């Protein structure tokens, strides 16, 4: 058996905003084809960590490697090239509202990847098909449901052939009945072998689809393990407290 490739490695990552130390020391590895899940209380720095991985946020110190390349000290002018390797999906979708769905998925292919237009269009349609929205290619984003918009945003990132996909609470802004369609797309992606780092509160999805779960709190990775270990046999008190609070919230939400 060949050794699995490390697609994303975070080592000793620290990030402060002014005096506030948000990430104190984060170490994390994601192997090729792995789906790694990140959970943790609000404000624990999950988004900040993801945003450091494509340098939307500048780390204060530490190193991040994407497919073996140390991206934390590449010069700013090379950032755009690096970002092509890291797909990112946001909580708020952020589709470009003035362009059709197809154009949304084509823009960066043409302008950043320098693909020819026909090739970019073919690729865009292929990706839209993969997320089940080929028939919406000519629609404007405002005509789509939140779940559909998020799937287009996933297609937009995938069209650039990234090595790693980062998801920051991709379903948190969605009505409950639309969550499933987005999770299904993510599961398909995982089955195709995509490497994914996912911040999310969908614990049920983590149980079904995650290879590993990371629990972050207070700027550190407090605990990590398989979903069974994390949910079935949490070791630290902080994780136990977090899980019981989340399950209460879930129960509360279902009772609504």
């Amino acid at each position: 058996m060949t050794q699995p490739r490390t697609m994303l490695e975070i080592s000793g990552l620290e990030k402060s905003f002014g005096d506030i130390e948000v990430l104190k020391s984060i170490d994390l590895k994601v192997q090729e084809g792995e789906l790694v899940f990140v959970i943790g209380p609000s404000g624990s720095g999950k988004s900040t960590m993801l945003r450091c991985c494509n340098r939307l946020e500048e780390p204060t110190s530490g190193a991040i490697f994407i497919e073996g390349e140390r991206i934390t000290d590449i010069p700013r002018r090379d950032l755009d090239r690096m970002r092509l390797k890291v797909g990112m999906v946001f909580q708020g979708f952020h589709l470009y509202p003035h362009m059709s769905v197809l154009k949304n998925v084509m823009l960066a292919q043409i302008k950043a990847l320098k693909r020819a237009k026909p090739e970019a269009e073919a690729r865009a349609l292929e990706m839209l098909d993969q997320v089940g929205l080929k028939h919406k290619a000519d629609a404007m984003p405002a005509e789509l449901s939140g779940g559909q918009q998020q799937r287009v945003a996933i297609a937009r990132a995938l069209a650039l052939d990234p090595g790693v996909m980062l998801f920051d609470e991709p379903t948190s802004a969605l009505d409950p009945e639309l969550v499933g369609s987005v999770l299904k797309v993510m599961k398909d992606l995982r089955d195709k072998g995509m490497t994914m780092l996912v911040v999310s509160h969908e614990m049920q999805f983590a149980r079904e689809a995650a290879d590993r779960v990371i629990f972050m709190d207070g700027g550190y990775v407090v605990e990590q393990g398989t979903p069974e270990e994390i949910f079935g046999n949490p070791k630290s008190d902080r994780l136990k407290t977090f899980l019981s609070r989340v399950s209460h919230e879930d129960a509360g939400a279902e009772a609504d």
Partner: protein
Amino acid sequence: MDTFIQTFFNLDIMSQAFPLLLKGAVMTLKLCAVVIVCGLAGGLMLALAALSPNRALRWSAIAYIDLFRALPPLVLLVFVYSGLPFAGVRLSPFMAVVIAFFLNNSSYFAEVFRAGINAVPKGQTEAARATGLSQAQALTYVVLPQAVRNVLPDLLSNTVEVVKLTSLASVVSLSELLYSANMARSVTYNASPLVLAAGMYLLVLWPLVRVIARYQRGLAVN
């Protein structure tokens, strides 16, 4: 009643004055074109400078915008045309008007663009940058089209203001529409050329004003 019509709506005098007024109108349109095109371009540059992370650049742009928005355009014009010669800078009336109104107008356009850009959610830029677009590409293809759409009525309003503003050029004897009409009035001892000029302003501005009103009502409905 007859004298009223003779004084304000004298068709003979209007048709006599028409060629002169048409020349004036062409000058007015030429002024507008130069001031609007330069004002838009300058305003966009200023807006970007005012939003730049570079502190020196940002503060100079904000100082420029504030200064020239505060100074009355007529004061600027008289200063550029009649004040600058004391420093040895002598400008033709046309150049003086273009420079004075550019200073005034670029600062107005800058403020409009700045508001438009600010109203585009930050997530748009982040999404664009995350897909490998450069800062300039994100601005060109993602932010600016949305920013312009956000402030289209204001850009149009400002354009209307420029057209009105150019009538001030008559104080430096630039033969634009108002100046020509006033000259025709003094030659014919009749107010009809002024009425004709007013009609010509209306012809250009009224449709624009309608479009703006429509647009704003549309925004209010949505």
